């Protein structure tokens, strides 16, 4: 543990087990490519042991790494089992590569931060005039839009000539006359539709139905017919008053 003694036991300070391993590897004071993985495993396990004896909280991933390193150590020390893939030597090599890689990125980050940076070492123009892009509208309209617009305006404001289309209707008087005439022979309950003219156009039929309905109400008021309807909008029946 003499090597790791150089590192303060402060588990909080490490950014994960790999970070701790890299720091421990550096204490070997050799190129990362030449470190002794076995010695590194000893350093790490010793460090964790120490931390435990001091009853420090140790995060699970540090313990997982410790277990994996213990497994690696036994693989490296025990006689080689050709069945085990990858071999402990290869695992050790990969661990060494991971440390190299992390170390390389850490150094690259430091070199990046040390470059001449805008706002710290070099400065941009303090008060640039600025470039401007003026949007110029390119108006578009088609000749059809133009004449249709004039038609619309003219239609809206020109004195409108109202032409009422001739439309077949049945007046209320005609309906009263017709219903009174036809109901005289109806002793049974008869639907109101039976009193509408045969072969009428849909328009006339609508007008006749409305007029006949009013006619029936008028005749009922006079006591000349009786009305029956089961519910609102149900068929309306009538017969001559008994």
């Amino acid at each position, binding site marked *: 543990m003499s090597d790791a003694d150089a590192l303060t036991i402060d588990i909080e300070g490490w950014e994960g087990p790999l970070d701790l391993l890299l720091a421990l590897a550096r204490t070997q004071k050799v190129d990362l490519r030449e470190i002794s993985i076995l010695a590194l495993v000893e350093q790490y396990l010793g460090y964790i042991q120490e931390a435990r004896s001091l009853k420090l909280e140790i995060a699970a991933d540090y313990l997982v790494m410790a277990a994996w390193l213990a497994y690696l150590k036994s693989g490296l020390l025990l006689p080689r089992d050709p069945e085990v893939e990858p071999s402990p030597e290869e695992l050790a090599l990969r661990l060494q590569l991971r440390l190299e890689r992390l170390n390389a990125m850490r150094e690259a980050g430091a070199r990046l931060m040390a470059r001449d940076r805008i706002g710290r070492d070099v400065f941009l123009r303090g008060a640039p005039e600025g470039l401007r892009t003026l*949007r110029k509208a390119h108006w578009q309209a088609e000749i059809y839009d133009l004449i249709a*617009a004039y038609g619309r305006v003219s239609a809206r404001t020109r004195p409108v000539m109202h032409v009422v289309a001739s439309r077949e209707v049945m007046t209320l008087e005609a309906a009263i006359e017709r219903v009174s005439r036809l109901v005289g022979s109806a002793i049974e309950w008869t639907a109101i539709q039976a009193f509408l003219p045969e072969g009428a156009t849909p328009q006339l039929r609508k007008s006749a139905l409305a007029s006949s309905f009013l006619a029936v109400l008028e005749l009922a008021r006079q006591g000349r017919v009786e009305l029956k309807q089961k519910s609102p909008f149900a068929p309306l029946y009538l017969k001559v008053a008994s």
Partner: protein
Amino acid sequence: MNPADELARAVEAVLFAASEPLTVHDIAAHVGEGFDVRAVLERLEAEYAGRGVVLVRRGERWHFETAADLAHVLRREREEARKLSRAGIETLAIIAYHEPVSRAEIEAIRGVQISKGTLDVLMEAGWVRPAGRRESPGRPLTYATTPEFLAHFGLASRRDLPGIDDLRAAGLLDPVDLAFEELAVESAGENA
């Protein structure tokens, strides 16, 4: 450029990075006392003269600015296609059919007021121009179409605009409310 000495380089950098014009005193606070900053400024002023960027003195303060004759380069125009609004096209149509016509007349024909912006857009588009004042009470300004208007709409002259009878024949004079009524009757027939 001539090789600049260290002091000139520093003054140049300080002026470039400054967010406002600087006095000789401000500059000296950066580059250090004991230099003839004013002499350096005058040398830089001469070096930059005629370039796209010039060093200028305004009262007691100095700053870099882009050369005044290049202002047009810093602005860039970009055309955007835009469709005329309904009010715009109606107003244009009324001017085309009735020119010269005053604003009050346009409003009377449209039956709706027009905003100032509507006429501005038509003039900006180059289709409408002021056409003198009418010799009537209030001497209202009148408007008329331009040659660009004819060119844009592919008309040889205003006489090429379809007349009222043509519009009626094309169904473009059918009042909207009558058209609605017909539609209503049709659907009623379908449901009877």
